[in-house]
């Protein structure tokens, strides 16, 4: 009997109290299988970004666990957690957050530099990723690319280290509806091609039709009755 691989993401009884004490995020459970896609919708300020930071290990929960590919990320400390995040989690942001002054290719390779990926693989993999996403001007500074191209470079960077999980934080917020649909399609296809699970958080309900699985964060946290 084959051993089932650990899920891409498993959140268990997660709680986080903001430093000002005025709001506490509670999430009883959230599970994302390998290669699964999930859209998490919630209004602005409901804690979507905080949840992503907790999953990425950029913030520590008050209690509960977050496991990515079977690893409790908060059990790791310091540089070990940073290395794990770089290797196992890819992130896409609303404003793409590409490194200024770096070419499209270099933006991908920086992510690889921070991971354990063998150095010989960096350039070929980065070139292949960019080619698969239709980026031809790979040596152009990222800031000189069009918005659509920048977004695809951001997607390529998130997938650079073959992560188990890609977190996308409002990836369509700065796009018009047509481009938003296209951007989500590119993101889903790229993650699917790389075998990465995808968790998208957004306040835009129009994206719901694009995802087979979607949840409302408000409903998830309400189930625990933890909203302040």
């Amino acid at each position, binding site marked *: 009997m084959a051993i089932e691989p650990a899920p891409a993401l498993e959140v268990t009884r997660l709680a986080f109290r903001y430093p000002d004490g005025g709001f506490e995020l509670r999430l009883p459970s959230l599970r994302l299988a390998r290669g699964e896609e999930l859209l998490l919708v919630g209004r602005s300020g409901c804690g979507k970004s*905080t949840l992503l930071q907790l999953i990425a290990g*950029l913030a520590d929960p008050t209690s509960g666990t977050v496991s990515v590919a079977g690893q409790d990320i908060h059990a790791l400390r310091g540089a070990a957690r940073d290395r794990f995040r770089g290797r196992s989690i890819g992130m896409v942001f*609303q404003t793409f957050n590409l490194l200024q002054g770096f070419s499209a290719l270099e933006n991908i390779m920086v992510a690889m530099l921070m991971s354990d990926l063998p150095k010989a693989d960096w350039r070929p993999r980065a070139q292949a990723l960019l080619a698969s996403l239709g980026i031809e001007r790979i040596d152009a500074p990222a800031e000189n690319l069009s918005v659509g191209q920048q977004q695809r470079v951001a997607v390529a960077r998130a997938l650079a280290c073959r992560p188990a999980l890609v977190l996308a934080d409002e990836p369509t917020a700065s796009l018009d509806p047509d481009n938003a649909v296209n951007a989500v399609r590119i993101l889903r296809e790229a993650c699917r091609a790389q075998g990465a699970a995808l968790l998208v958080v957004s306040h835009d309900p129009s994206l719901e039709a694009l995802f087979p699985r979607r949840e409302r964060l408000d409903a998830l946290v309400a189930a625990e009755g933890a909203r302040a």
Partner: protein
Amino acid sequence: MSDLTIVLRSLSVRRFSTGLVVLLVALSAGLLLAILSLRSAGERAFERGTGNAHLLVSKDGSPLASVLNGLFYANPPKAPIAYAQLAQLRGSFPWAMFVPTAIGDSYRGFPVVATTGEFFTAFQPVLGEPWVFAEGRAFERNFEVVLGASVARETGLRMGAQLVMTHGSGKSREGGDEHAHVHEEYSFTVVGILAPTGSPHDRALFSDLESSWMLHAHDRFEREGTHKTVTPSDLVEGDRVVTGVLLRLPSRDPLSAPPALVSQYDRMRRDGSITVAIPSNEVQRLFAIVKSIDVLFVAMAAATLVSSACAILLSMINSMSERRRQVAILRVLGASPARIFWLVLTESTVIGLAGAALGVAVCAVVLFAATQWLLSAHGIMIAPQLDARSAVLVAMGTTLLAGIAGIVPSALAYRTPVSRNLRPIG
């Protein structure tokens, strides 16, 4: 792709401010290095000028003035040494070298040194480096003159050229010396041109003592109302004066001072009518006098270097707002806070290193220019080379200072909160 690539890209994003700071560091480091190099090179150049004379006798007011006037031709010595005293001095010790000199005439502002043939055979302008004639020979007859290398270059005089001396001071007639007058009656013929020595002697002309005495005798006759062409037979003892004597004691090692030098020096100093100087000691004394000013210059240059380190600090702190986003992105990509710290620290160190490297280049240019100027204006030749030890120390110091200046921005980057600097994200 490496951490250094990240550092260089980060610097290139702010290329204007980075360039300015690197330039500032380079100027500071170059200035400090130039001062240190010129200091040691200048000292060496002055030491070269003292030649192989163990002692210099004159009637100047002090040993230092004696050396500055008698070997560096700063001013013509005022008081002459009488012939009788010269003869007495010659017989007082078995000198290995006894070269009398009379300085006071000039040609187009260049001092004329009247001396004996021994000046070219026994006296060395630089210790261990005898005279070399680029052209011609030493004077052998009256009214022959030998040109120092700089004199030949600057006046354009060639072998066989005729010239007349200005009597009075070392200043030219154009310089306004009211006592100067030209001995039109006696023209000198250029019979030799010396190769450069890198010493003040390059800016002098050399003729025989007897000719100089005849010029003075001519003046004496004119004062007496007699107008005649003077010959050696017209000279009286009062005409036969010199302004200095270059002395050398017998020595087994031509490059070091003999043990008898100090006792001989002390013996001669007892004679209050003359001033005795050990040229190399006087040069050291001169450097000791200017040392405090010298230290001040070095301190000012070092302060400039520290201020450039402050500029690095300010520049990096000013760039923190844009740097925070970069730091947050790198953290998301897997960089640890410690790695971020070292990346920023490397950035400031690279600025220091680039500044130091550029500073060494700036220094080389400054030294070359200074060398050319000193050589043409004062006959002091300094090889256009950096003092290697100083260069290494300044480069290391600059880089270290830059690294120290980077500690605060590095610590700020280390503490940069990630989530706040990736907004808008939700």
